[in-house]
């Protein structure tokens, strides 16, 4: 394949609390092992982001101060970001950064305006939810079990598709077109090759439209298969 997939890793310096950058390494390795050329572009705050050149975007989780800095920066890119998402290109957001994309963050003390790119409101929870979790998920008809670690004190109120409906009160994550936001944090994709491959497939389908029935080759996933047998 003569073209390459360009992954945009946004604000790695600010949003990399728990090894989040590992997700980009997973995407990169899984592309290279399939002989698909890949370029990773890291963007810092206030750098020019070439949204139209990117095929896959990743945004990790961070602490509140860092998220505020990122939100201030992304306000200058609202139109481009919205266009990117609406054009069906994949974007993965992990950890608490999902709240950045909604309209408002409600907590007991104040209302913090979000970027308003997606139609949802973030509500603070009284108690933190923390721990290892396995969720049954369906993404575009594909059923998979997501394994990961949660440590959040907020939930998202919306009518979009969710990653998983934990209970009546609590819905996990948000799916909109090829935007995936999950509260699982850290190197989520390392333990979830299926999710990584969904993002890769979306990116490749869009980039290599000329190849009909583009299929991803199987990889040696014996490590992950062994792990999932133990935890699921």
């Amino acid at each position, binding site marked *: 394949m003569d073209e390459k997939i360009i992954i945009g890793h946004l604000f790695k*310096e600010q949003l990399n609390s*728990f090894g989040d*950058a590992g997700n980009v*390494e997973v995407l990169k390795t899984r592309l290279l092992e399939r002989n698909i050329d890949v370029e990773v572009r890291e963007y810092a705050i*206030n750098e020019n982001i070439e949204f139209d050149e990117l095929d896959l975007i990743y945004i990790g989780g961070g602490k509140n*101060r860092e998220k505020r800095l990122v939100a201030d920066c992304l306000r200058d890119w609202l139109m481009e970001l919205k266009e990117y998402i609406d054009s069906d290109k994949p974007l993965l957001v992990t950890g608490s950064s999902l709240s950045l994309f909604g309209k408002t963050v409600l907590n007991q003390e104040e209302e913090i305006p979000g970027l308003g790119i997606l139609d949802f409101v973030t509500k603070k929870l009284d108690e933190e939810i923390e721990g290892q979790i396995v969720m049954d998920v369906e993404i575009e008809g594909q059923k998979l079990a997501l394994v990961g670690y949660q440590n959040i004190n907020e939930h998202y109120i919306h009518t979009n598709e969710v990653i998983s409906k934990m209970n009546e009160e609590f819905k996990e994550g948000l799916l909109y077109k090829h935007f995936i936001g999950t509260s699982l944090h850290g190197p989520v994709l390392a333990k979830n090759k299926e999710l990584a491959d969904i993002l890769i497939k979306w990116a490749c389908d869009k980039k290599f439209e000329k190849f009909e029935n583009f299929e991803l080759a199987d990889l*040696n996933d014996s*490590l*992950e298969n062994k792990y999932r047998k133990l935890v699921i």
Partner: protein
Amino acid sequence: MLFTLMLGKLVVKLAGFAKKDMSIGGKIASRMQKDILKRLKKKITGDFIFIVGANGKTTTRNLLVDIFEKEGFNTGNNHHSKDTYYGVISALIEKTKIFGKTKVDYMVIEIKDITTLSLFKEIIPEYLIITNLIKEQLSRTGEFQITIDNLKKYLQKMTSTTMIFNGDDPVIVDIGMDLKSHVIYYGIDDHNDDDEPEERKCIRCNGTLNYSYINYGQLGKYICNSCDLETPEIDYLATNVSLKDGIYFDLWTKGNEYPFDLPSQGYHNIYNILAALALLDELDIGIDAGELALEKIDIEDIFVDTFYIRKPIFLKEANNISSFEQGLETIGEDEGKIDILFIFDDEDDEEEITFIYDCDWSVLDNINIEKIYVSGDRAFDLGFCIRYLTKAYNKLIVSENEEMTLNQAINGTGEKLYIVTKGKNDKNFEKTLVSMEKKWSKSKKWTRK
């Protein structure tokens, strides 16, 4: 105060005998006497030297204590107690005489957690060393900027303290620029033709910090394009650094050159040595005395324990990103055929373990690895790192059974075995190796008969 001190000393001693945490003595004393630190400082004559930073503190403290003792100074330190707030109190109680003043020449105190600097409210040291403030590491114990702002706040009040700072760290220099106290910088000039310039965000103004080279972490030679933050004039500068068969460098200070050739390892140790030498010179003990002492001192090696069971085995505990990276770096310098075993068993600490994804694993790409074994509760986390961050996936062996994996690794085809551990079983693991080594050596004697 008298009763508090007597009780504190008793508890510290009992805890010491029972091999328990001696900081309990400090805790009890602090509850009984709120301003205990202030009072202890008054009772102890001599200079207080505090060491803070993300890493290198323990080695720097141990170096200083060894040198002071070799030079015949009466020295106190918090080696036996913990390096937390109460640990520092315990260390001072342990050294203080119940009646009258306690005469020491130097009291060398390492402060473990940079987020608990509250002891500076009560005690102002004569000298303060900051080894480095590596962002990736400090971010794990709290919001980085808040931690730095707190540190600045305390340091700005310490106008009579001589500050000995790592000038290669822009985060430290940013703090130093606003201080009224006497600030001395040490650093390494490690410029070479392969240097790759790099840009980072400036901690002082959010502008662009241009590095002409980076030694590791954020340490290097830098200049900001929008504010006045840049590598300062270095008072104690190491040049011509070489790590071949030990540590070699030339130290330049005050127009004089001092060549050092030391039987140790690890780039980071040069910074620790420089911090110690800068302090010795400021105390008028002199660089020469430091040099003589250093040649006889076994600087803490990266792989602290070595064993011999069929082959040389090197063991290291790696409890944070820096020590883990130092371990990887040392393994990466080995030119022989090796096996590596990682055993991590922090069952409950999912977030803490993620630092392994921020490490530079590429140092393992060009060495001769036979097998990489991973084991313990976190075997798979390590396995995924090797899967995605190295070229050694085909050499990976994963097992949660630590004992079995250890035996496999010892019987592996490598000429040497490097073991890196983290977690609750560190000490047990060391004991297991000691006992295996004894058994092996006995069996060899029996075979020879």
